[in-house]
């Protein structure tokens, strides 16, 4: 079958898609966007997180056909040209990236959290990222990165000191 959707602001067409393929497979293997990761392909790890019509989803659990006519944003679509999004920048700066396999999913999930709540508490961050597994970092630096990103995005007056 043929699947047409908007991906990172561009209309993309995938041809010859087998009905059992996931959105993740189509992105990675047919549209040349391997940024979304395939750590479990069963909805457990969040490494494949993308926006579908503005909501974060596990793309491994979305059948390719369900994406027809919809809007997808992947980790590749978050930076503005050469400039990293503040969340991406904070992940590198805070040392929240080790092997990095969890990172694309976490970046999308953290991006979504800060869109909804620009100034989350630590408990809010832990809650929001609970669906994303990381085996390397122990999570502390990831939580720090989200704090750093939040501080950078907040208007001057609301920034915490330090």
């Amino acid at each position: 079958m043929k699947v047409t959707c908007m991906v990172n602001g561009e209309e993309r067409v995938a041809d010859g898609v087998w009905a059992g393929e996931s959105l993740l497979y189509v992105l990675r293997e047919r549209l040349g966007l391997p940024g979304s990761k395939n750590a479990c392909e069963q909805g457990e790890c969040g490494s494949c997180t993308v926006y579908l019509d503005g909501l974060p989803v596990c793309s491994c659990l979305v059948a390719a056909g369900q994406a027809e006519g919809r809007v997808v944003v992947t980790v590749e679509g978050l930076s503005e040209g050469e400039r990293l999004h503040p969340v991406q920048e904070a992940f590198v700066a805070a040392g929240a990236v080790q092997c990095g396999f969890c990172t694309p999913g976490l970046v999308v999930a953290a991006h979504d959290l800060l869109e909804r709540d620009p100034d989350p508490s630590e408990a809010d961050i832990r809650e929001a990222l609970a669906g994303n597994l990381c085996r390397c970092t122990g999570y502390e630096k990831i939580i720090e990165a989200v704090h750093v990103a939040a501080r950078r995005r907040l208007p001057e007056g609301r920034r915490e000191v330090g």
Partner: protein
Amino acid sequence: MGTGPGVLTDPVTTAVRGGVGDSPRRPDGTLKVTGEFAYSSDLWMDGMLWGLTLRSPHAHARVTRIETARALAVPGVFAVLTHEDVPGTNLYGLEIRDQPVLAADRVRYQGEPVALVAAEHPEAARRALDLVEVDFDPLPPVTDARESVHGTSPSLHPGGNVVRHVRIRHGDEHARADVVVTGDYEVGMQDQAFLGPESGLAVPSPDGGVDLYVATQWLHVDRDQVAAALGLAPELVRITLAGVGGAFGAREDLSIQVHACMLALRTRRAVKMVSSREESFFGHVHRHPARMRYEHGATRDGRLVYVKAETILDGGAYASSTPAVVTNAATLGAGPYDVPNVAIDCYGAYTNNPPCGAMRGFGAVQAAFAYESQMDRLAAVVGIDPVEIRIRNALTEGSRIATGQRVDSAAPVAELVRRVRDMPLPPSADGDLRAMPGGVANTTHGEGVRRGVGYAVGLKNVCFSAGFDDYSTARVVLEAVAGEPVVLVHTAAVEVGQGLVTLQAQIARTELGVARVTVATADTQVGGAGSTSASRQSYVTGGAVQAACRQVAEEVRRRAAERSGADPGALDLAGGKVVTRDGVPVADMADLLGDDRVERTVEWRHRPTSPIDPATGQGDAHVQLAFAAHRAVVDVDVELGLSSTGWCATRRSPTT
């Protein structure tokens, strides 16, 4: 000095940024946050095929027939291979070559590879796998490692079921003590569960060889095993590291390496293999389950007199790194304590359980669970605080461990325990349900919740031990590009996320005073670097990079001295220039190099270790030891048995 340009006369005092001691960013950080970093499962080539593996559903069985014709007939399928298609030796293994690439007449664990398929689409490959007919004649599985060690189970391998026995006898084997505590401990199997599944791309080359891009931990040992299985000369197997999504020991053994190469060589097409998560659990080794019986003897004031132990590690169907795991569990088995008398027998067994091998801190971790549980019991019997009993017995510099080896570098065990004890305790849940046992299931608002605090210390070896020829190789190239000195560092050392790529560049910047350093992708085109395991790469590959840089620096100083007439021994490299000890430039490195390049390749070794004595386990088996102390704080609802997420405080030495 005849150095020419006036700009060279200002003293160069600032060290180049991003060197050792700085915290530069990971060079791969930006690629990883934008999704552009190429992991082994991201590789793609026009016309590539997908490879899949058929695995045994039985833990122990004879294979009586394999029929592939129906599978081969599936449209889109290009090859179906069995043990008969293994071109070289159908056995591989890290330390003992005992594991078939594809099972021939017997399978020894559930999940053992039996056949391979390559097809245009993963779904076609899956359908073909279903059509491979294999007749198994199930045999009773050996599941109890203790029976294997005691010789009461049928032999799974020609030499019997004991992979290794290490015997430690230190001091008086018959020592007695006023206070004695004993305990039986069991540690279950654990999995590393790295996030990036086993994967890689094999590409046949016109010379009859193969190029393999794969996530692994040890390129050269992969290459040697792959070459032997393929019946190819090692130089015809070129392995390049693809992006690694975590490793933790689970990538030290081969997974898809030989399989992908066999399919590529047979089909003459590039073949990609990616394990599913479920397959990944069958496709790599796990942490050895352990059964440990410990007896600790101490004086009435809690000073250790002896430790006796018997430890049985279940290695599963194939040896993998079981011999080394046994060595560590035995030699580190008394813990980071001063114990005058130690008697330990540690065994690694073959069973039909899943194969076990490397996982972070192997051997040391299992033993720590037993000896630390014992220390808590001992503290209770003696009537002192668990922290105090650890401090009272802590190993110090100059102490001897169970192998009789004297600790000849810092061993701040007591200090580490004090530091974790003195860290502030985490706040109580304070009404936020998310921090309560049971969470938002709203099972308690604090009633019935008790807080438990536990301490544990441990030690492990750094680098390979027991006489292993442990080395790494670094190739360092210095040249001028666009009027600027640049450095290339090339090793076969694997980056798994730990930050070795950052560190290699830091070392080169510091040694050569050059800001622009590129770390080449690791591959087998340079000498071996050993495994990314045993906490060794910063030490060994770091040492090799430093040594190669120093040879390059020596040549640069020699050239600068020749040109300027200065004494080469009185020159340094800093800020892209050759300078005197006072920082006065004598030459610009880019000028000095011109179109030439300085290249050095160095093999570097740490001080040698010795094998342990087979009868007593005594010997200087370890290069260096690392120590850790933990404090865990867990809130438990004692009525429901629910616990909150624990808090864990950690201190380590050396801090690496």
